[in-house]
């Protein structure tokens, strides 16, 4: 009977106690004939024990309260915000401050993920959309220049969606600060003075996040993530207008990337 030659993977397997009994006997026999390999394996076994011992106390610590899973699940079960189609504009004005986004802020003072993104977008909308003098820093004459600027600062390729098909003109963009780092802010208008902004920045978690609506007292928005890049659209327009627009942008960026 010929034995498979002993390889490096067998030695690692022996160190990690992952070998089948028969193979383990073969490897042991090999080490009996090769004292140098035996010495190395023994040192690796000792290293393994040392590393396990060094970090074992961490897993034995009591789990801090903020990592209590029941609490995390509970925190997510906020009173659900009413569906957009059921929410008339007048109702929105009445409950905007107390319900929706306002309440979430009160409950979770430091938003994370999509919520943090949505909050940054609303804040920047509130500052730049009403500005008459300089709403954007780089005007829309060169779409590629804006895309290049954002891509360089966000450290990943970013597209500038064309919404002229939906009746919206790109005014331009600017780079803005968020607690999570730089973000690109694009501004569009409908030719009648109504503006909206779209904020883009890399998310700390890769992958996609489903689109979620949110509202402040004066604006509505949608936020989502696509391939690790977060998007948030904010405007004063009715959700019935913003939602299809957000879908258009999501389709456009999906194709671009």
């Amino acid at each position: 009977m010929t034995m498979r030659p002993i390889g490096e993977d067998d030695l690692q397997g022996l160190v990690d106690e992952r070998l089948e009994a028969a193979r383990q006997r073969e490897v042991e026999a090999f080490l009996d004939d090769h004292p140098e390999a035996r010495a190395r394996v023994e040192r690796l076994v000792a290293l393994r024990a040392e590393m396990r011992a060094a970090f074992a106390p961490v897993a034995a610590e009591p789990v801090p309260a903020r990592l209590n899973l029941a609490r995390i699940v509970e925190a997510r079960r906020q009173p659900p915000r009413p569906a957009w189609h059921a929410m008339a504009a007048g109702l929105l004005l009445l409950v905007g401050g107390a319900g929706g986004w306002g309440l979430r802020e009160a409950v979770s003072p430091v938003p994370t993920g999509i919520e943090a993104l949505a909050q940054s977008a609303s804040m920047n909308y509130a500052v730049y959309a009403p500005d008459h003098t300089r709403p954007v820093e780089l005007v829309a004459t060169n779409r590629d220049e804006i895309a290049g600027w954002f891509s360089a600062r966000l450290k990943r390729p970013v597209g500038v969606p064309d919404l002229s098909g939906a009746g919206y003109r790109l005014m331009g963009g600017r780079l803005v600060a968020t607690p999570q780092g730089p973000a690109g802010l694009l501004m569009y208008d409908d030719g009648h003075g109504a503006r909206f902004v779209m904020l883009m920045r890399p998310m700390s978690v890769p992958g996609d996040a489903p689109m979620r609506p949110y509202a402040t007292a004066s604006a509505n928005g949608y936020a989502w993530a696509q391939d690790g890049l977060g998007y948030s659209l904010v405007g004063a327009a009715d959700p019935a207008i913003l939602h299809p627009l957000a879908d258009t942008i999501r389709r456009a960026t999906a194709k671009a990337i």
Partner: protein
Amino acid sequence: MTDMMRLIEPLIPALRRYARALLRNPADADDLVQDCLEHAVGRWHQRRADGDARTWLFAIVHNLAVTQMRRRARRGAHLPIEDTAEANLAVAPTQESGLRHRDLMSALDALPEEQRSVLLLVTVEGLSYAETADILAIPTGTVMSRLSRARDRMIQLMDGADGTVPAKRPLLRRVK
């Protein structure tokens, strides 16, 4: 929901241990685990139906940690081990084991990031080679070669280059 609690909750101590081993700072590590749990709770229904909860959660922690370490490296905020407050170390060293512990941590710090994660997942977390490959999204063969390189490098750093000289701090400092 109860299914999720039952599967995730027992893994939290191990997730904390892995995050701590990677980031070293206890507060940063727990922040990371909290992010991971929030993410997991929100995305529970989106995970692969046939997938294992443990590898899924470790992958989330790993990806969050890598993002944070790269951000930290860009900011230049990496703490050299000599300057790290005792409270920031994984375990408060006892008098006799203190030096040994420091050598271990210094050697771990000196490993390239991709070798360190393989070594920690296999050795400290006791994950199989296949599970480790799954978490890091690399082939099992790559896990094996990184594991072998990581271990030899650790020994070299801790025992001295020729394997006989006991650890010398100037040597460690030079390879950093």
